[in-house]
């Protein structure tokens, strides 16, 4: 990069003189005009004609991005990857996401404002600024007002710039050398920085280690750990009955466990299986059947299960004529309410699992009583 950027600095005695000189310096069109003053001067932004800082726009965009990021993370975690019902709320409850969205918006926005200002706009890795090398710098931070015409390219005419500033009333004109932008990440600097970070870590780590060792009672955040709480399966003095775990309120129904077949078995006959006959549904039904039904009803559904001999009862033969002619609803009713010696399976099986197993029982029956045309369907 050719080192051509340097500037001409004119020193003024009063802010008024500076303000008057600004339009003249700008009219000369020699380069970018910049002012350095010990304190803010009203109206100087407009006079210099600087374009608006892009920082506000950057902050807005990053803030919105922060909100979207936080929403996306939470939505993915709570609704897609690991949905857990908490407090009876739907998995994708946007209300619960808002506080975190707000925090992340603020985080993104403030980081953008701070780091964007330091690194993007003020070019932080370079500590110096050409005006700092001026011999008038102490005055500029106290009672002098400086106007700089800064070079934009190699055709910069520093003599003309100096003349313009003098004509505009500068009491002193100075030509500033190009800023020193030699590589600042020298090996010396990196080594010292790493050494400093390492020392800080060691000191902090040792301090924490000995502090907690010698002053173990000073645990700073133990209130949360020590607070009274209810433990599952443990006694507690909080409730009258002395149990930590409480029975749900009478009439509580878990999601997917709505009791739908509460009438007689005849009334349930008209219920229609809401599930489609897909591979997944049959697989689900098979899983449930193997876990819950097979020990008694047998793997073929013929009532010869592995428990039959030991238990001495006679589980229903689902392959019998009577059960083959049962409508789906009556099988469903039997699962929900139990029948004869069979207990109700409603507490263990969700609505979908009950209907899936009905489908599977149908498949078992069909497999034992296959018709000729069933062979054709398999073909492709």
């Amino acid at each position, binding site marked *: 990069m050719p080192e051509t950027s340097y500037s001409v600095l004119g020193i003024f005695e009063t802010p008024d003189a500076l303000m008057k000189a600004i339009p003249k310096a700008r009219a000369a069109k020699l380069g970018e005009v910049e002012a350095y003053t010990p304190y803010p001067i*009203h109206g100087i932004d407009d006079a210099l004609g600087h374009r*608006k800082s892009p920082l*506000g726009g950057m902050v*807005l965009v990053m803030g919105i991005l922060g909100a979207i990021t936080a929403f996306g993370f939470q939505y993915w975690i709570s609704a897609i990857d690991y949905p857990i019902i908490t407090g*009876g*709320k739907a998995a994708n409850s946007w*209300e*619960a996401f*808002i*506080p975190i969205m707000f925090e992340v918006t603020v985080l993104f926005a403030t980081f953008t404002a701070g780091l964007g200002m330091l690194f993007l706009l003020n070019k932080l890795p370079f500590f110096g600024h050409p005006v700092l090398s001026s011999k008038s710098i102490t005055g500029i931070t106290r009672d002098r007002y400086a106007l700089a015409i800064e070079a934009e390219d190699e055709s910069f005419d520093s003599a003309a710039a100096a003349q313009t500033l003098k004509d505009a009333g500068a009491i002193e004109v100075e030509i500033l050398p190009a800023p020193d932008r030699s590589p600042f990440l020298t090996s010396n600097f990196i080594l010292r920085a790493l050494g400093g970070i390492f020392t800080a870590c060691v000191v902090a780590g040792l301090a924490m280690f000995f502090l907690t060792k010698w002053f173990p009672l000073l645990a700073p955040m133990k209130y949360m750990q020590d607070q009274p709480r209810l433990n599952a399966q443990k006694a507690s003095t909080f409730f009258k009955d002395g149990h930590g775990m409480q029975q749900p309120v009478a009439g509580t129904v878990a999601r997917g466990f709505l009791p739908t077949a509460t009438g007689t078995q005849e009334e349930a006959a008209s219920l229609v299986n809401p599930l489609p006959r897909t591979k997944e549904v049959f697989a689900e039904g098979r899983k449930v059947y193997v876990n819950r039904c097979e020990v008694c009803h047998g793997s073929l559904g013929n009532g010869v299960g592995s428990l039959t001999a030991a238990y001495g009862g006679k589980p229903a033969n689902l392959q019998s004529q009577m059960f083959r002619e049962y409508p789906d609803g009556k099988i469903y009713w039997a699962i929900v309410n139990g029948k004869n010696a069979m207990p109700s399976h409603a507490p263990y099986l969700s609505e979908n699992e009950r209907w899936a197993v009905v489908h599977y029982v149908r498949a078992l029956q069909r497999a034992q009583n296959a018709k000729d045309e069933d062979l054709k369907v398999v073909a492709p």
Partner: protein
Amino acid sequence: MSQNKNASPLIWGATALGALGVLGSYVAAGHERFWANWVLWFVLLFTLGLGSLFIVALEHLVSAKWSVPVRRIPERLATLLLPAVPVGLIALGALPVLYPGTRPEAAHHPILAGKAFWLSIPFFSVRTLVAFALCMLGLAVLVGGSLKQDATKDPAFNFRARKFAPAFMAIFALVITLIAFDWISGLTPEWYSDIFGVYVFAGAFLSGLAATALCVLYLQDQNRLEGVRGDHLYNLGGFLFAFTVFWSYIGFAQYMLMWYANLPDEVIYYKVRLAGSWRAITICLATLHFVIPFFALVTRDAKKDPKRLRRVAFLMLGAHVLDMYWLIFPVLGTKPHFSWPELSFALFFIGGILLWIRGAMQKGEDMPVGDPFLREGLEFRL
């Protein structure tokens, strides 16, 4: 000014037409609906006046200098508390009709029985009268003193106001909470929310700010506020911007806690407002009261831009009306009521408020010329 003279008969006509409609609605639209409208406009009138008085008190509290040149406007708007008193006294007629806590069967209600004394008509009325008296005190000290200072140029007023302002802040908190809890939250006495007073305060302050901004812009158009510039507008716009966020923060915080806890006596308030047509109104409210003003005022230049500020201030006032409507009208039932009675009330009260403000604007000085800080305020730059 010629344009004004033409506008005046129009406002008088609209107000008279509104008055007819108001009378008609008492006869034809049912008492519940009449009183719901009356309470709505009492609350709007009162929050506008009290919000403006809060702006005045805030300036004295923090010894703000920038707002001295525009202070006469919230002072004039605060005088709306005077007509709010008769309107409020008439509104006491709504107590037996709309407020369940005042009915005899409340004595047997498991929750209301414990609050029976607080909700009874005599104590309710006494509280409202106390609130009015406290407002009049604030009005007399802050606004009356400032008007007198125009002639006397006595800086002692500034010291007196500065001493009185902290006390008035406590009074203000009490008054706005009383009015919010009694007149709005009292419509659903089984429901309660600690933060409700703050929510109504945010709306009241916003309505005062928006009205102030509109009047400043109106007077600027007539060259009556010499020296008030974009820097002053920027501060008004900044306040508007900040408090739209504050309003939505409080509103959402209240909603989220109730939504999370899901307690039947709390969540019913939102259950009503998130069902059927009220749901659409709730979404509209969030959009008009927060989303649009937020993005309209987010940039630095927008807060100085008179055109933009005027539009947002209009929107803010409308959103405040919608906000109070949203709080009060579900008491009439699950369906939102809006037709000629509501329009008549709007015509009558908006017309009346405009006439009152016009009258106030034509009296005395447009700036507090006796205030020693006026010059410093006019020299305010960002």
